């Protein structure tokens, strides 16, 4: 497997995944994958259902621990530190923003949704929280729509607004890495494009893992793209090469061109 990034500034790995295997009971969900994620890149992760993409994200923020029969082998390093040895798992999770496929507005006000993570981390000062809430809602391109009604329920927003609310919430703990798991699945195309614009500006501040079932989304946004299939990492390379006429693997070509089984 070859990886050749175009510019040198992206060569610092922030995540190093080595021979990662995940079992759910007897079922092997990730079959020994290894790759690096570089600082300030958008890594697109594409592949059909059941290929291990969501599992990979859950390993990185260690929420796979809540799945009773899941076992993990291999190592994942964040800034050179093996995440399985990090004792402050809550601190680890705050270094990673996670956006799930279906928007989950917590049954709290819009304000409290965004202030949730800072509060659990111990921030109490109202003025400090106000600044965080406004910054995150601005970053998620939701501020203008909700600034007059921050105290209404987050669950009453439309689907697209709720997804931007979850992005604002994921940004509220100032993560180094933002993971998005098929964020556009329940969002209209216009909102999807707005969120994509948001991601382009966020790239300067953080590293983004973009799991998507829309291959064109990876093509539009990602610096590099990884293709997963049935728990294997088939290929990872610059997006230009993955979407070119001759990626290293025939399966990659078939998948991104929609001729896959």
């Amino acid at each position: 497997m070859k990886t050749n990034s175009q510019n040198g500034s992206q060569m610092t790995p922030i995540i190093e995944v080595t021979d990662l295997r995940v079992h759910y009971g007897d079922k092997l969900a990730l079959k020994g994958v290894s790759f690096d994620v570089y600082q300030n890149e958008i890594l697109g992760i594409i592949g059909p259902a059941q290929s291990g993409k969501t599992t990979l994200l859950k390993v990185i923020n260690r929420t796979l621990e809540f799945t009773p029969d899941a076992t993990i082998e291999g190592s994942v390093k964040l800034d050179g530190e093996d995440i399985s040895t990090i004792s402050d798992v809550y601190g680890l999770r705050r270094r990673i923003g996670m956006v799930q496929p279906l928007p989950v507005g917590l049954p709290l006000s819009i304000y409290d949704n965004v202030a949730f993570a800072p509060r659990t981390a111990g921030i109490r000062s109202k003025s400090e929280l106000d600044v965080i809430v406004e910054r995150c809602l601005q970053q998620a391109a939701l501020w203008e729509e909700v600034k007059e009604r921050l105290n209404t329920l987050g669950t009453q927003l439309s689907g697209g607004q709720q997804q931007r609310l979850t992005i604002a919430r994921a940004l509220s703990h100032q993560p180094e890495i933002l993971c998005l798991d098929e964020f556009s699945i329940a969002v209209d195309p216009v909102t999807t494009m707005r969120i994509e614009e948001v991601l382009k500006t966020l790239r300067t501040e953080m590293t983004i893992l973009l799991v998507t079932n829309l291959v064109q989304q990876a093509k539009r946004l990602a610096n590099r793209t990884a293709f997963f299939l049935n728990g294997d990492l088939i290929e990872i390379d610059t997006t230009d090469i993955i979407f070119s006429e001759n990626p290293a693997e025939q399966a990659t070509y078939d998948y991104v061109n929609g001729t896959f089984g």
Partner: protein
Amino acid sequence: MFTETEISKRKRQTENVMRIFFLVMTSLMILPLLLIIGYLLYKALPVLSLEFLFTNPKDNMRAGGLWAPFLGTIYLVVVSLFVSAPIGIFAAVYLNEYARESWFTRITNLAVVNLAGVPSIVHALFGVGAFVLFAGLGESILAASLTLAIMTLPVIIASTTEALKAVPMSFREACWNLGATRWQTIRRIVIPNSISGILTGVILQVSRAAGETAPIMFTGAVFYKNITEGNLFAYNITEQCMALSLHLFTISTQVPDVTEGIPYGTAVVLVGSVLLVNAASIVLRVYLRTRKKW
């Protein structure tokens, strides 16, 4: 013009027949309840008054009111809920929110289901052995309440578990992703959104604890006890008390020549207090539901 086919006509007729059938069955269910309450009220009318509620039984229980048994039942129910509600709710939170599938949780869940099916007379014998004799509490309000608590505990655990399960898993996952601990998730999201179900489950156990006779008759309830009328603190929980359910049983079967309306009046007070508490739980539930947030 649209003309009805033979098949759709028959379908419509069957639909009407079935609807009436289900309505009749529903009425059959409500009818006995209305008859019971109506009959009790009719028979009890001559004795029902505030004085009936606030005076003690007199003349070897042949006359007088219900103060001692009424207050005794309140004591038994309140003390038993003070024990069973916290234990039951916290146990359910542990089983549902913290515990992983293991032999321990499997056995606990099995025990909960089976305990809920144990006849109350068995609980009574356990209460005699464990609280009256072994723990040395003697026959007392405390021993009887603990017996009632053991009896209501599994149902409180089951109803709390149901209420907790009604909170979507995705809320918990969202909190964990934000770096919240399980406790922070429980305190800020799970409990506030399941509290109406939890409280309803607990309150429904009031009626069960108030109505039971077997568990208390060997552990703390007595045939007769004279207490100060109108004093809410007339009982000491280390002593015995009277109780409405046992009182109804004794004046109906053990005492000759009881004034005609008194047993019916006792039944009305027992059923009435239970219905009142249940109504309160419905009001509470409706109130909390209007604040439901998703």
